[in-house]
């Protein structure tokens, strides 16, 4: 649609008090996104895509999302199959629960967030290789096994029934899932906003993915 091509891609970044939002806001802006910071469900009305960042533990994060009345709007967004990117904790929250503190999370992907076992060091902090399990527009122009920046001790583990959602894996002790994709629902365990040029490329790809999405326009 002509209108969609002319206006900027509007991204809501969810702020629920989980740390540094400046870097994701700056990175999305750098690649051409029009970023708004969403502190309640109302802020999701006129945007094309939703980004949930965050670091730390799942329990306090879910409690803060509840307090900001964001849990139901996020569920409704995902149920409506609109473009979504979860980053780090924002990916982990998509699963049913977390072993970190026993928290119940959004449950839109079958599986749990589990500790990285056999890891030589924890937290897993630093640049590590992301191995693609299949091609996806999110990784267009990014070589297989490129380095991205990770900061975490836990990672989402999809149920075998959800194996098809796995987009990429990374090794630290054992292999864990470092990116998922199911239709317009995307998640990465690493921090593209802190991963230099390849990170910016991935975010630019996300914006292109949003523009190409049939459900990217604001709901009527």
């Amino acid at each position, binding site marked *: 649609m002509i209108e969609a091509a002319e206006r900027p891609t509007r991204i809501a970044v969810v702020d629920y008090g989980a*740390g*540094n*939002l*400046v*870097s994701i806001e*700056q*990175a999305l802006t*750098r690649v051409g996104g029009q970023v708004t910071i969403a502190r309640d469900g109302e802020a999701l009305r006129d945007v094309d895509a939703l980004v949930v960042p965050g*670091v*730390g*533990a799942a329990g306090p994060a879910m409690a803060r999302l509840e307090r900001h009345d964001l849990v139901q709007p996020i569920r409704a967004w995902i149920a409506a199959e609109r473009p979504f990117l979860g980053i780090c904790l924002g990916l982990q929250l998509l699963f049913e629960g977390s072993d970190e503190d026993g928290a119940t999370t959004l449950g839109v992907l079958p599986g749990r967030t589990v500790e990285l076992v056999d890891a*030589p*060091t*924890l*937290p*897993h*902090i*630093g*640049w*590590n*290789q992301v191995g693609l399990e299949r091609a996806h527009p999110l990784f267009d122009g990014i070589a297989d096994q490129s*380095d991205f*920046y990770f*900061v*975490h*001790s836990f990672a989402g583990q999809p149920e075998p029934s959800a194996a098809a959602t796995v987009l990429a894996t990374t*090794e*630290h002790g054992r292999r864990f899932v470092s990116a998922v994709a199911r239709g317009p629902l995307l998640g990465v365990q690493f*921090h593209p*906003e*802190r*991963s*230099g*040029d390849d*990170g*910016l490329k991935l975010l630019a790809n996300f914006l292109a993915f949003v523009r190409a999405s049939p459900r990217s326009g604001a709901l009527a």
Partner: protein
Amino acid sequence: MLRRRVIPCLDVADGRVVKGTRFVDLVDEGDPPELAERYAREGADELVFLDITAAPERRGTLLDIVERTARRAFIPLTVGGGVRSVSEMRDVLRAGADKVSLNTAAVADPNLISRCASRFGRQAVVVAIDSRRNVGPDGSPPTWDVVVKGGRESTDLDAVAWAERAVDLGAGELLVTSIDRDGTGTGFDTDLLRAITERVGVPVIASGGAAGPADFIAAVRDGGADAVLAASIFHRRIHSITEIKAAMAEAGIPVRLTPEVAA
């Protein structure tokens, strides 16, 4: 495979990058965000800002620098120097830092580590340990004392014991500086690094004494460090990050090779 990191450290005083020898004789070496962007381009894996003035009335200057840096350098940023409370840590994170390093304040109040870790997650809490080697009888194994206030004040804490305690309290990473070697270009204290990396499971950043590529390789191979930090050799362009990483790769150490490094 997880890469070993090369981290330029920017000592910041009153909004400028400075470097002295053993925390004194400071020399102005540039604008922090500008240097940060240059280092990101040259392949820095992360950046550390240490605010070494840390006078309370100057905090605004630091937050402004952090924010301007976050707009220009899309790699992780750790900020340390004078953070004494959960609310000060929150301000620094909200300005655009990914991690905060605690030093003197954590020695004075070790539970500060736990409070910060439970609020922001342990991955955001770096504990910086400035260590001074004790001169013991000949042949006795070396020990190190923790020093605080930029090396000006001694404590009776053993550096290795403090490292273990800091991790138990919630530190997600340790920044271990040899005060004896800092700014001297005589190489990292690999005995100190090894003593700590053998006892903790969190990543350890080596600091203090870098002169050339061989020191970075030794910090990883002999010291067991996950990351290596240096200041003067990068600011003064004695060695480039590209050159250091190429030498590490040559020595078989996994590093992130950016296009410039590979070229």
